[in-house]
C-alpha cells in the first residue's frame, strides 16, 4: 500500500506539469481564465504531492520505480526513477519555485499575446526538470536535459517581436549544444566503460577505468554548458531577454541547477584529476561572475552574473568534494535568487507602467532608479531580505550554506583548499559589494530619472509570491539555530559546526564589506570599468575565435567542395550520361528492332491470309478450282 501511494505521488509530481502543458495546448488562446487556473491548479497538485513526498519519505527507505523502456538486441534500457533525499529536496524545490513563478506570472505577463504558449512552456519546463531530478537512467536523463534546453530556448525567446530575444534564445541554445556534444561523447564513454546507463549500477561500481577521467570530463562539458560555467557562461546574461519570471525559474530551480545536480549525482565517477578541473573551472567562474556583476548597470544582468558566480561557488565546492554543502547552497540560492529576480520584476513592472505616456527610459538600468524604498515597500523588503541572504549576512539562509562550504573547505587543510578558501572569501566580499550596490542604487537616495513619475506597487498576486520567497530566505529554512548550519538537510557528522571563530571572522568580514560598499557606491556611484562590464571580453573573444575558426573551416570546406567533390560529381555525371546514351542506342536498335520485326512478320502473315478473302468472287472460284484440281490429281495418283 505504501509503495503504491509512493508511486502515485511520484507520478503525480512528475506528470502534473506535463498534463498542464497538454491541457494548455488544447485550450483555445482566448480562454485566459481557464488557462491560468488550469496551469496553477496542476502546479499546485505537483507541489503538494512533492511536499507530501518530502515530509513522508525523508530519510526513509526508498524503493526505485522500474519501468521498461525498450531493448536493442540483448541490451534492455529501463526508464527507472530513483528517489534519494537529494532528489526529494530538489523535486519539492522545483515544484514550489515553479508554482510561485506561475502565480507571479499571472500578474507580470497579464495582457501578453501568447499567454497560452507561455504557461504551457512553463509547465513543460518544470516537467523536464523534474524528469532530470527523478530519472535513474543516464539516457533518459540526457533526454530530459535536452528538453530543458529546448524549453528554455522557447521561453527565453518568448517575446517574439524583439529580435534580441530571438538572438539570445539562439545563443543559449547553441552554447548549450556545445556543452551537450561533450555530454554525448561522455555518455558513449560511460556505455563503453560500464555497459549500462543505469545510475544505480554505475555508481555501485568501484573499479577505476583508465578512461574514466576523460568520460567524467566529457560529462562535465555538459554541466559547463547548462550551469553556465567558464567559458560557456555568456548565454546566461543574454538570456535576460526572456520575461523576468522565466529568468527567475531558470536561475533558481530549473535550468542551471540541473548541471549542479548532475555533478552531485555523478560525483562518484569523477576521478581526482577530473575533480581538480571541476574545482578550477568553478573558481574561475565564480571570480569572473562576481567581478562582472560589480560593474553592470542592468539590474537583471547583475543578477545573472551573480548567479554565475554562485554556481561557480557550488561547482568549486563539488570539485573539492563538498557535496552536501554545495547542494544546501543550491537549495538556499534557489529561494533567494528567485526572490531577487521576482522583486526586480516587481520594480521593472511598476516602472514600465509608470513610464507609459511619460518620457522613455530603460527600466532595467539601475542608474535610472533610486529612492524606491518608500514608493515600493514590498519590493524593498523582499529585495533587502533576499539580498542579505545572497550577501551571506547572519540570520539568513545564504549565510549558513556559505558557512557550510567554508568550514568544509577549512577542514580539508591542504594548499588547494587554502587557495579556494581565499577565492571564496574574496568572492563573498565582492558579493556583498554588488548586492548592496544594487540596493543603494535602486532603493536609497534620490530618484534620478524616475522622481517625477507616479509609481504604484503591483497587485497582490505578484507581491505574495515574492514575500513568500523572501520569508524563505531566512535562516529557519536550514536549521533552527541561526549560527548552526546543521539542520534537517545537513546531518553528516563530518561537518564540524563548532568552529565559532570562523563564523565570527566571516561576520566581521561581511560587515566590513557592507561598509565598503556604502562608501564606494553611495559616494561616487557611476565608475565602472569596461573590462569588467564586458566580463573580461570572454563573449567577444569566443565570438571572434569561433568566428575565425568557422570562417576558415568554411572556406576550406567550400574549396574542397568546389575543387574536388564537385569535379568528382561532374565526372560521374558525364560517365553516367555516356552510359545512358549507349544503352539508349542498344535499346533503340536491338530491343526495338526485334519487337518491330516480330510485329512486321505478324502483319505480313495477316496480309497474306487476308488476301484469300478479298471479296473478289472470281478469285474464290479460281481457288476452288485450284483445290479441286489438286484433289483430283492427288486421288488419281
Amino acid at each position: 500500500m505504501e509503495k503504491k501511494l509512493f508511486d502515485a505521488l511520484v507520478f503525480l509530481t512528475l506528470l502534473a506539469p506535463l498534463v498542464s502543458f497538454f491541457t494548455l495546448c488544447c485550450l483555445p488562446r482566448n480562454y485566459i481564465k481557464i488557462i491560468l487556473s488550469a496551469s496553477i491548479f496542476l502546479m499546485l497538485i505537483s507541489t503538494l504531492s512533492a511536499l507530501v513526498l518530502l515530509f513522508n519519505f525523508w530519510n526513509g527507505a526508498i524503493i526505485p520505480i522500474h519501468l521498461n523502456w525498450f531493448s536493442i538486441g540483448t541490451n534492455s534500457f529501463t526508464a527507472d526513477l530513483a528517489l534519494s533525499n537529494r532528489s526529494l529536496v530538489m523535486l519539492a524545490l522545483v515544484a514550489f519555485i515553479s508554482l510561485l513563478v506561475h502565480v507571479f506570472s499571472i500578474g507580470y505577463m497579464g495582457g501578453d499575446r501568447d499567454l497560452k504558449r507561455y504557461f504551457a512552456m512553463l509547465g513543460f519546463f518544470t516537467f523536464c526538470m523534474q524528469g532530470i531530478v527523478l530519472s535513474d537512467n543516464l539516457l533518459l536523463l540526457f533526454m530530459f536535459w535536452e528538453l530543458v534546453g529546448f524549453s528554455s530556448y522557447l521561453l527565453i525567446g518568448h517575446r517574439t517581436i524583439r529580435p534580441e530575444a530571438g538572438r539570445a534564445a539562439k545563443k543559449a541554445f547553441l552554447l548549450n549544444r556545445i556543452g551537450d556534444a561533450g555530454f554525448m561523447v561522455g555518455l558513449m564513454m560511460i556505455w563503453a566503460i560500464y555497459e549500462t546507463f543505469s545510475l544505480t549500477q554505475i555508481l555501485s561500481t568501484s573499479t577505476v577505468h583508465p578512461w574514466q577521467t576523460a568520460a567524467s570530463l566529457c560529462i562535465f562539458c555538459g554541466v559547463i554548458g547548462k550551469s553556465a560555467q567558464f567559458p560557456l557562461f555568456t548565454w546566461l546574461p543574454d538570456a535576460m531577454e526572456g520575461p523576468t519570471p522565466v529568468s527567475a525559474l531558470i536561475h533558481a530551480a530549473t535550468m542551471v541547477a540541473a548541471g549542479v545536480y548532475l555533478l552531485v549525482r555523478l560525483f562518484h565517477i569523477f576521478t581526482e584529476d577530473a575533480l581538480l578541473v571541476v574545482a578550477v573551472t568553478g573558481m574561475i567562474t565564480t571570480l569572473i561572475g562576481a567581478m562582472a556583476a560589480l560593474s553592470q548597470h542592468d539590474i537583471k544582468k547583475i543578477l545573472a552574473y551573480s548567479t554565475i558566480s554562485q554556481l561557480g561557488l557550488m561547482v568549486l565546492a563539488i570539485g573539492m568534494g563538498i557535496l552536501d554543502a554545495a547542494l544546501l547552497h543550491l537549495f538556499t540560492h534557489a529561494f533567494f535568487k528567485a526572490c531577487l529576480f521576482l522583486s526586480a520584476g516587481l520594480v521593472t513592472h511598476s516602472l514600465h507602467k509608470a513610464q507609459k505616456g511619460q518620457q522613455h527610459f530603460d527600466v532595467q538600468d539601475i542608474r535610472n532608479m533610486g529612492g524606491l524604498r518608500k514608493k515600493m515597500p514590498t519590493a524593498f523588503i523582499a529585495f533587502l531580505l533576499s539580498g542579505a541572504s545572497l550577501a551571506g549576512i547572519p540570520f539568513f539562509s545564504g549565510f549558513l550554506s556559505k558557512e557550510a562550504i567554508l568550514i568544509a573547505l577549512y577542514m580539508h587543510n591542504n594548499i588547494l583548499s587554502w587557495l579556494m578558501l581565499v577565492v571564496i572569501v574574496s568572492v563573498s566580499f565582492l558579493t556583498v559589494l554588488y548586492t548592496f550596490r544594487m540596493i543603494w542604487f535602486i532603493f536609497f537616495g534620490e530618484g534620478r530619472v524616475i522622481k517625477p513619475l507616479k509609481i504604484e506597487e503591483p497587485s497582490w498576486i505578484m507581491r505574495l509570491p515574492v514575500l513568500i520567497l523572501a520569508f524563505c530566505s531566512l535562516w529557519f529554512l536550514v536549521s533552527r539555530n541561526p549560527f548552526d548550519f546543521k539542520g534537517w538537510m545537513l546531518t553528516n557528522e563530518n561537518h564540524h559546526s563548532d568552529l565559532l571563530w570562523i563564523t565570527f571572522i566571516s561576520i566581521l568580514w561581511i560587515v566590513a564589506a557592507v561598509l565598503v560598499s556604502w562608501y564606494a557606491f553611495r559616494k561616487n556611484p557611476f565608475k565602472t570599468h569596461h573590462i569588467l562590464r564586458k566580463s573580461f571580453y570572454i563573449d567577444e573573444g569566443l565570438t571572434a575565435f569561433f568566428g575565425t575558426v568557422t570562417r576558415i573551416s568554411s572556406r576550406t570546406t567550400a574549396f574542397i567542395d568546389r575543387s574536388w567533390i564537385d569535379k568528382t560529381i561532374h565526372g560521374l555525371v558525364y560517365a553516367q550520361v555516356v552510359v545512358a546514351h549507349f544503352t539508349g542506342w542498344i535499346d533503340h536498335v536491338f530491343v526495338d528492332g526485334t519487337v518491330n520485326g516480330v510485329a512486321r512478320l505478324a502483319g505480313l502473315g495477316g496480309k497474306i491470309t487476308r488476301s484469300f478473302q478479298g471479296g473478289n468472287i472470281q478469285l474464290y472460284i479460281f481457288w476452288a478450282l485450284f483445290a479441286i484440281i489438286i484433289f483430283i490429281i492427288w486421288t488419281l495418283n
Partner: protein
Amino acid sequence: MLYLAAFLFSIGIIIVMVKRNAIMVLLGIELMLNASNLNFVAFNQQHGQQSDGHIFALFVIIVAVCEAAVGLAIVLRVYKYYNTSVPDEIADLKG
C-alpha cells in the same frame, strides 16, 4: 467428241473465272453444263447398253433451263435494285 466437251468445259470455266458480269458468268455455266451433257452422250455411245446417259442429258437440259431462268430473274432484280449486274460491285456487306 470428248475433246470438244473438254474444250467447251474449259472455255466455260475461263468465262466464269474471267468475266465479271453475272450474265456472262451464267453463260459460262451453261457452256459447262452443255459440255457435261456432251460427255454424258459420248460416254453412253461408247459404253452404254441402255440409253441412261441420254436420259440424264435430257434431265440436265431441263434443270439448266430452270437454273438459267431463275439466275436471269435474280440478275434482273439485282440490276433493277443496284443498277449493275456485276456481283463484285455489290458490296453492301463488306466491312
